[in-house]
């Protein structure tokens, strides 16, 4: 091998080696994994208020009247933002499939509060709208609309899929507890 050939080979080997060595470095750009807050709801978890003066207190049947809703976390699992649920109390007679009626108790139904469009926290609203002339769930970010009476299906706006339901029941003290995990993946899924 002459000197030119050796120099060329060294250069090429060097470039390949440098690229290979850079790959693990590039992988670190993905950042630290979340250490806390990867727990999801389990049967028996009490739902506690996420906000307000009652934050951390259990949500009970008497916490709200019909056509009201509160934001709640499974107790002790508020680190995981994806656990945020909107617990609604609706007219039981209006609840219908695809709501899983096994996971509803006396009109109390819980859905993931994370919008399936871009992950904002949704709100409950009683104000009638054109597309939803009844109590509904809407997202303040890009105006997605969901029907809490029928499995939080998309009524309008940009959301690609319904808000996943979290089955709930009442425990012996009248507190709302989770009765399983979310029925579908929470939030933005791509």
């Amino acid at each position, binding site marked *: 091998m002459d000197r030119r050939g050796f120099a060329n080979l060294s250069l090429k080997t060097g470039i390949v080696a440098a690229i290979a060595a850079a790959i693990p470095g590039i992988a670190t750009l993905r950042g*630290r994994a*979340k250490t806390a807050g990867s727990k999801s709801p389990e049967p028996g978890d009490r739902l506690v208020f996420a906000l307000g003066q009652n934050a951390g207190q259990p949500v009970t049947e008497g916490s709200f009247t019909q056509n009201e809703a509160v934001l709640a976390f499974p107790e002790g699992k508020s680190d995981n933002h994806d656990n945020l649920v909107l617990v609604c109390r609706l007219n039981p007679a209006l609840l219908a499939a695809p709501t899983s009626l096994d996971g509803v108790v006396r009109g109390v139904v819980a859905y993931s509060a994370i919008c399936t469009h*871009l992950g904002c926290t949704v*709100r409950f609203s009683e104000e009638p709208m054109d597309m939803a002339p009844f109590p509904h769930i809407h997202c303040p970010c*890009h105006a997605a609309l969901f029907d809490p009476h029928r499995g939080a299906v998309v009524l309008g706006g*940009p959301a690609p899929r319904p808000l996943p339901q979290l089955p709930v029941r009442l425990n012996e003290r009248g507190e709302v507890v989770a009765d399983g995990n979310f029925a579908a993946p929470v939030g933005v899924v*791509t």
Partner: protein
Amino acid sequence: MGLAEWFVERLALDRFRAKYLGKPFPVHTTFFLGEIALFCFALLVVTGLYLALFYEPSAENVNVGGSVMPAAFASTVLIDSHPFGLLMRRMHHWAAHLMIAAIVLHLLRVFFTAAYRKPRELNWVLGLVLLAGTIMASFAGYLLPYDQFSVTATAIGYGIARSVPWIGGAVADVLFAGRFPSPSTVPRFFAYHVVYAPLILSALIGLHLLIVLKQKHTEPSSSAGHSASADASGGRLISGIPFWPQQSALMAVLFLLVFAAAAALSAFLPVHPSGYYGPPGPATPEVKPDWYLLWVYGALRLIPGDLSFRLFGATIGSEAIGAMLVPGAIALAILLVPWLDRAPSSLYFAEHPLASPARLAMGLAGLTLFAALSVAGFSDELKLSVPVLWVVTLLSPLVVWWATYSLASRRRRASGTLGLGRN
């Protein structure tokens, strides 16, 4: 021998003076827009240098007087409590708004006078990259106060990045340093905002100006008296006022005006009151993006969820269409303007905006599209339904195009002279 002499001798300043200080600058108010953007950038650097002394890039919770909040938010509130601290933070924010506004107006001036034509395509593209870079730098800066609004806006940005087909998850995680809100996101965005953005923007601004220096400015079409002399010399003579002393004095005045405008706006109009918004919590506030991203926000609201489709195993969701495909197509069209405009061009003269009815109509129709999309961002407030907004968004640019084109053509026929390349 005086001190000035001493430097002149050692640095050969005579040659510099002869070569650059006499450089002619155009005298036309719209030619100050680029300078205004530059001065805003200078203001951003200066106020940013102050903010960087106190800002703490960390989302870890700290205890401040009994209440627990992220360190970044706590340091923002601390800056607000300093003498002039709140003013500095507001001026930083206002200067960013003014910079983007100045760049947009500068872009419009270049568009409507056809100053993007050969040989200036390079600076057209570079200018658009500068605009995009400035918007990205602003987006990174938006997160830093780490209040309720910042976190909501960045979470939406993360969702949009995730919606990139096939590789969205990896792209979003690399850009945001993990699934937002990850503990690594704030330090990463701090680096983007205070290291990468200023370095890259400074380099690109330098290049932009060097190219202007090399290619010379376009002669404003209003300086009819001067163009005669340029014609006499075969178009090789560029008229204007010399850099030193006339232009330098104008620039000093302009800088002080920009400074005064940012200071006055900051003093009287609160912008991004982090302390009022409060630290991030579970609920999402009514959040709208800053004015320059309202059109993307409107597009996101207009695209219904059932428009998403599958392509080669990836889901092209409504968020990908609204925040990537639509804005991407619009940005590409703007980028390709110098190649789409096939009219013969003058090397030295800016065209009169009315000279080409087609370009004027396209420009105004484009502006109308941006306005209509931005209006769609207020669908709730205006009580307008999505189908109505679709009709408005699609029809209004067409109406504006047609009206402008026919009016400008009629005017051109009537005056006769306007049609001839320049007037």
